[in-house]
Every structure is written in structure tokens, then in C-alpha cells.
């Protein structure tokens, strides 16, 4: 009995050992097989999900801290295909609420669910209001048509909303040319949105998020995009945009541009132009900017400035010692420079003039003579020092350098010296002109125009500093020119004058070049001025393109300058000369 029992135990032991050995071998075989690796990979794939952590795009503020560009929640609407009950209802609802294409939505929602097809995107950038309407519709259907299961009942079952942030512009079209916009894909176009796209958008990071809560790890700290504080003041900008609209209407101009800059710091307080786009509807870009219409004339559009350029010519000649304010000139009505005869704007002869008279009557002949007295080399050196023909470096995308032909260039002729002296044959942008004139308003120091006041990065505010671009003229010359242009406005009783305030400025009327020569019936009317002259707080540039009521800058652009200054002195708290004197006496 004992020997039989022992044999049985031995046999059972051997069998169990063999079984255990077999199981171990099989386990090892499965673990080490090539399929096991693939299976493990697949398992890992389903054990979590890759997610892109995109930081919120940095905000943009005006100089007073008002939000100009922020972010709002929008939703991607999709369906879980396995839960769809009625694709037709979903298509109808999305067509009615978010204006989605019925056929496309129906086709997507009708897709048979499979291992590959689980989810379908139906609409993007659905607003909070639209989401609420869809939610409400869904609830109403549940109430009206009862429980799930009935295959024919109207139902929005399966619909899900995935929230995300999208750029929004609370001020709509205000300063749209400065800001630019961000498209659906989050890319910045034009203005500061394009110029600072990398800084504003920050850096996305892709992270693996395991479903297993035991494997949860700390999310990487994705730094938010940097925010910007701009130099513009939204109230001044809004006022300038209103004036742009009214000036266009009153003068019948194709477009208008007004810029306001602080000559001491280079801060651009306003840069209003037309047309403008409601940035929340950026997809209407083609509709608003037809043909080659530039998005931001302030930096992108060049034009021949005409007589406002005489300010620079006279400044250069006086600084270079070629003329003095009292230098006399006999205007015979024409002058020949490089074989080309130059005439005055009215083709008349103005007789004996001093330099004040030349500027006051805006005499082309006199200024051409002044340029010849200075000489081509010095004249063009001064113009380059004023920044004509080169980028200002202002922080807005799409800046155009303009064009200043120089002696030695293939297309430069001696006659260009004469025409350039009164602003023809030279192309500038509004921001270039403003920067050049800032030298006259700021004791000879030319300041780089500044649009970004501060950058907020990682919770810290980094302020930018005003930068001097150069000193093209001496403070003495700047003062002489300012006095000359102040007197000039007073003597001619210019419509640019503002009661109680002393300002300096110059009108400009430039014929427009075409492939067939200059047009005499279409002009660019401009005005550039600054004030109060004893302590300039603003430089103003006005440009009306092709005005129809009158071609003259003195008629259409000078009154716009007055309107601008009338608003600026209120908004910038600038007391009139009399009150300022009283305040100074009282101190």
C-alpha cells in the first residue's frame, strides 16, 4: 500500500512539475515573441493620450491698460459616432445654429463607427451662445421625444463640445491696422500680431497623459505667451479714427491717414487710417481690402509727400549753412536744375523773398534753388540722416522702406535734386515722415517711433526705453525752423491754427505719379505739424489721398490738423498758452 501510494505521489509530483515548467516556458515564449512587442506597444498606445498643451496667447493692452486683444472660449463640435441616433437632426441643428453645411454634417455624422472611425468633427469655432442654443435644443428634444432607443426620434445624442481659446478683439475695428489679426490656426497677420507672433503665442508642448491614475505625473509648466502694452491711447485712437472718417467724407478722399506721436519719447499715440477691419471677422479681409489696398498704410504705403518735404530741405540747408532765415531769393517763376525746368505750384513768379516767404508761399523754385545751394551730396546726406529711404524699425509688420534715389544710382539724374527738394520723386511712408519731423520738434534729436511700451513675460513687466535715432540737425536749427513755420502759419492765417495754442506746421500738395507722368487733377494732400511750440507734446501727420472737393493741402488737410489738435489738447490735458503762463506765474 505504501509503495503504491508513494508511486502515485511521485507521478503526481512529476506531472505538476511538468505542468509548471510548461506554463513557465509558455509564459516566456509569449513574452519574448515578436507579437508580444507589438501587443505591448498597442497596449501602451491605449494606456493614455498625447495632448498638446498650448498656452493662452498673450494679451495686448493700450497705454492705459485697456484690453485691445484678448482670448475667448470657442468650441469644436463633434460627434461620438457610436452614440449618434439621428444624423439628420444633428445636421439640421448645426445648419440652423452655426450655419454649417447640411450635407457635409449629415455625411460625417452618418459614418459607420468602427475601430478606425470613432469621432467626427462637425464644426469649429462655435461660440458660447451657439453652444447654449444647441444644448437647449438637445434638452427640448429629450423632453419632447422621450427616452433613448427609439431610432426615429429627433435627437442630438452623440454631440460633444471641445472648448479652446480663440483671439478676440473687444474694440472691434479700433486700431485694427496696428494690431493685425490671428487666423483660425493661431498665426498672426499684420501689425503687432505678426511682428510679435512668436512672443505672443508662446511655445506649445506635447505631453503624454496616462489614463492610469497611478502613473499620473505633474504637467509641465507651459509658460503663457508674452503680453504687450502698446503706446497707443485708445481714446485718442478712437477720436482720430472718427476724424479720419469725417475728413474722408468732407474732402471726398479715397483714404485718409492721421498719426500722432510724442516727439520726446517717440510714442505713437494714434495711427488711424482707412479702411479698417473688424478683427473679430478677419475672414472678411478680401472684402474690405480690395485689390492692392494695404492693410496698414501707416507703414506699408509710400507716397510722394510734396511740400511737407520742404521742411526737411530747409532744415538741411539752414543746418548746412547754405541759407539763413533772412537770405533773399528772387523768384522769377522758374528755375532749371539738371536740364529740367521747375515752376511754382501756381506757375507764377513771386519776386523777392526771404526764406520765411519761400516756406510761407511754398515756392518750389525757391526750394530747388536752396537745394542747389546746399549741393547734392550734402542734401542727400541730410535726407539719409532724416531716415528717408530706410526702415524706421517701428514694431509693426510690413514696413516699406520707401525710396530715395541717390547720386550714383542708375536712375538718379541731376534734375532729381530739384524735384526732391519739394517732395517729388521721393517716396516715403507716413511713419518715416513723422520720425523725420520729430527732429524739428525735439531740439534736433530724431526719435525712433515706438509702438510697444512694455512686454510682460513670465509675470514681469519689461518697459522699453525711448531711443534716439540720430541728430540730423542742431537744436538751434530746429528752433529756427519751428519759429519760421509758426510765423508762416500765423501770417497766412492758416486754417490749421488753433485758438489759444501756438503750433508750427506745413501743408503739402503733391501730384500723383502715373506711368504717363504726373496727374494734375489727383493729388495727395498732407499736413505735418507740432505743438505747443514752447514744449512740443505732439507731432501730427495728416494725409488725404486724392481729395475731390479741393486738391490743395491748405484747403483740405490743414483743417483736419486743427480738428486733431483741438481734440488732442483736451485728451492730453494741455492748457492753452495763456493758462499755462498763469499756472507758471502761480508756481
Amino acid at each position, binding site marked *: 500500500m505504501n509503495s503504491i501510494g508513494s508511486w502515485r505521489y511521485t507521478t503526481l509530483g512529476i506531472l505538476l512539475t511538468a505542468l509548471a515548467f510548461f506554463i513557465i516556458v509558455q509564459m516566456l515564449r509569449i513574452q519574448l515573441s515578436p507579437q508580444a512587442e507589438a501587443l505591448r506597444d498597442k497596449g501602451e498606445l491605449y494606456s493614455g493620450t498625447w495632448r498638446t498643451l498650448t498656452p493662452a496667447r498673450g494679451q495686448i493692452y493700450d497705454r492705459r491698460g*485697456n*484690453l485691445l486683444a484678448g*482670448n475667448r472660449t470657442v468650441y469644436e463640435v463633434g460627434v461620438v459616432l457610436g452614440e449618434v441616433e439621428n444624423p439628420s437632426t444633428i445636421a439640421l441643428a448645426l445648419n440652423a445654429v452655426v450655419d454649417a453645411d447640411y450635407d457635409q454634417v449629415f455625411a460625417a455624422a452618418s459614418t459607420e463607427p468602427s475601430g478606425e472611425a470613432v469621432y467626427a468633427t462637425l464644426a469649429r469655432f462655435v461660440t458660447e451662445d451657439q453652444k447654449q442654443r444647441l444644448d437647449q435644443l438637445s434638452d427640448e428634444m429629450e423632453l419632447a421625444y422621450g427616452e433613448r432607443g427609439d431610432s426615429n426620434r429627433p435627437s442630438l445624442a452623440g454631440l460633444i463640445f471641445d472648448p479652446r481659446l480663440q483671439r478676440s478683439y*473687444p474694440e*472691434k475695428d479700433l486700431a485694427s491696422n496696428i494690431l493685425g489679426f490671428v487666423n483660425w490656426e493661431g498665426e498672426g497677420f499684420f501689425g503687432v500680431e505678426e511682428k510679435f507672433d512668436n512672443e505672443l503665442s508662446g511655445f506649445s508642448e506635447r505631453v503624454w497623459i496616462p489614463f492610469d*491614475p*497611478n502613473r*499620473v505625473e505633474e504637467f509641465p509648466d507651459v509658460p503663457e505667451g508674452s503680453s504687450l502694452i502698446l503706446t497707443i491711447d485708445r481714446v485718442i485712437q478712437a477720436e482720430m479714427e472718427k476724424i479720419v472718417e469725417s475728413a474722408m467724407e468732407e474732402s471726398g478722399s479715397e483714404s485718409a491717414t492721421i498719426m500722432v506721436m510724442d516727439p520726446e519719447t517717440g510714442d505713437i499715440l494714434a495711427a488711424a487710417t482707412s479702411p479698417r477691419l473688424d478683427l473679430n471677422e478677419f475672414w472678411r479681409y478680401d472684402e474690405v481690402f480690395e485689390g492692392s489696398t494695404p492693410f496698414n498704410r501707416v507703414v506699408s504705403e509710400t507716397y510722394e509727400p510734396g511740400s511737407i518735404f520742404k521742411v526737411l530741405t530747409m532744415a538741411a540747408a539752414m543746418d548746412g549753412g547754405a541759407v539763413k532765415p533772412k537770405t533773399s531769393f528772387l523768384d522769377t517763376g522758374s528755375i532749371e536744375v539738371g536740364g529740367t525746368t521747375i515752376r511754382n505750384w501756381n506757375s507764377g513768379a513771386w519776386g523777392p523773398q526771404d526764406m520765411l516767404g519761400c516756406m510761407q508761399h511754398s515756392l518750389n523754385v525757391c526750394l530747388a534753388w536752396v537745394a542747389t545751394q546746399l549741393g547734392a551730396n550734402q542734401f542727400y546726406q541730410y535726407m539719409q540722416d532724416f531716415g528717408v529711404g530706410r526702415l524706421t524699425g517701428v514694431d509693426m509688420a510690413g514696413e516699406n522702406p520707401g525710396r530715395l534715389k541717390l547720386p550714383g544710382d542708375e536712375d538718379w539724374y541731376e534734375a532729381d535734386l530739384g524735384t526732391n527738394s519739394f517732395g517729388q520723386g521721393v517716396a516715403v511712408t507716413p511713419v518715416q515722415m513723422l520720425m523725420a519731423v520729430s527732429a524739428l520738434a525735439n531740439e534736433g534729436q530724431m526719435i525712433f517711433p515706438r509702438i510697444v511700451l512694455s512686454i510682460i513675460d513670465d509675470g*514681469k*513687466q519689461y518697459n522699453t526705453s525711448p531711443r534716439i535715432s540720430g541728430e540730423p540737425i542742431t537744436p538751434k536749427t530746429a528752433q529756427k525752423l519751428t519759429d519760421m513755420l509758426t510765423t508762416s502759419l500765423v501770417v497766412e492765417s492758416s486754417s490749421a491754427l488753433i485758438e489759444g495754442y501756438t503750433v508750427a506746421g506745413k501743408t503739402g500738395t503733391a501730384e500723383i505719379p502715373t506711368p504717363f507722368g504726373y496727374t494734375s487733377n489727383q493729388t495727395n494732400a498732407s499736413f505735418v505739424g507740432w505743438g505747443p511750440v514752447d514744449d512740443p507734446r505732439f507731432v501730427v501727420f495728416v494725409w488725404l489721398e486724392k481729395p475731390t472737393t479741393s486738391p490743395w493741402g491748405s484747403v483740405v488737410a490743414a483743417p483736419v490738423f486743427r480738428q486733431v489738435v483741438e481734440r488732442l489738447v483736451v485728451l492730453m490735458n494741455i492748457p492753452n498758452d495763456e493758462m499755462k503762463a498763469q499756472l507758471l506765474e502761480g508756481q
Partner: protein
Amino acid sequence: MYRVQNITQAYSQAPWRKQLQWIGLFMLALILIAMVAGIYLSVSAQASSAGREIQIMYAEMEEIRRNIEDMESQIAFMTSNTSMEARSQELGFTRVSSEDIFYVVIPGYRKPDQIEIAGSPGVSLPEIPTVSPEYTQSLTDWLSERIFNPASLLVKEVEP
């Protein structure tokens, strides 16, 4: 020889006692293993629960951040220049011209240079630890701190 055998037999335990001891030891080991397994299960369940809470909190953080951005935009829409102008007109305010303004000198008043939305780079607050070291240091760290740096306890007490 016979005497030795007698003594050994006299002091030997009964076979059933030995079996009982072995069973007792086995049961003790089993209970210990069960206890360790129970503790392990409990701790891992708590860890899973905490992990799940962390996942939920991350989702909440993201939603809160999105809501903050959204609300800032909503406030900006409500206080936009156009809205504020319309509201001021409804309230009966009118535009002023330069003649309507009277300026007064206030001695000592200096207009602020620039708006500050965030702190300047020069100012940085010291980091305040959010998790007490007791939750992060190991037993050996804690012991070595107490042995080699006993004054640290006093320093902590005077911290605000």
C-alpha cells in the same frame, strides 16, 4: 550511551507539538503577507484616488484659466470705448472743449510715468514652499536633520 538517549528523549517535544509550531509559523507568515498585501492595496487605492483627483484638478485648472481669459474678454467688450461712450451719452455727459477745462497746479503731484500691469523684473518675492518637508523627506533625511542640525527645529518655530 543509553543514558544520553534517555535524556534526549526526556527533553524532546512531542511530534504533535512540532507540527503545531510549524502550522503556527506558517499561519503567522500568512497573516503577515496578508497584512502587507492589505496595506499595499490600501495605499495603492489611496494613491490611485489621489492620482485621479490630480487629473480632475488639472482639468479644472485648465477650465478656470480658460474662464478667466474668457471673462477678461467679456469685461473688455462691456467696457470698450464704443460702449463707454454710448453709456456716457445715455447718462447725459457731453464732450468738453479746451475752453471748458480749468487747470489747477497741485504742489507735489507727479503724474505716474507708466501703467504697471505686472511686477517689475527687479522685484521678486521669495518662494514660499507649499509642501512641508515632512511630506517629502525620507526617514534617514529626517533623522540626520535632527541629529546633525537640531537648531533647524528652532528656526522653523520662529518662521511666520
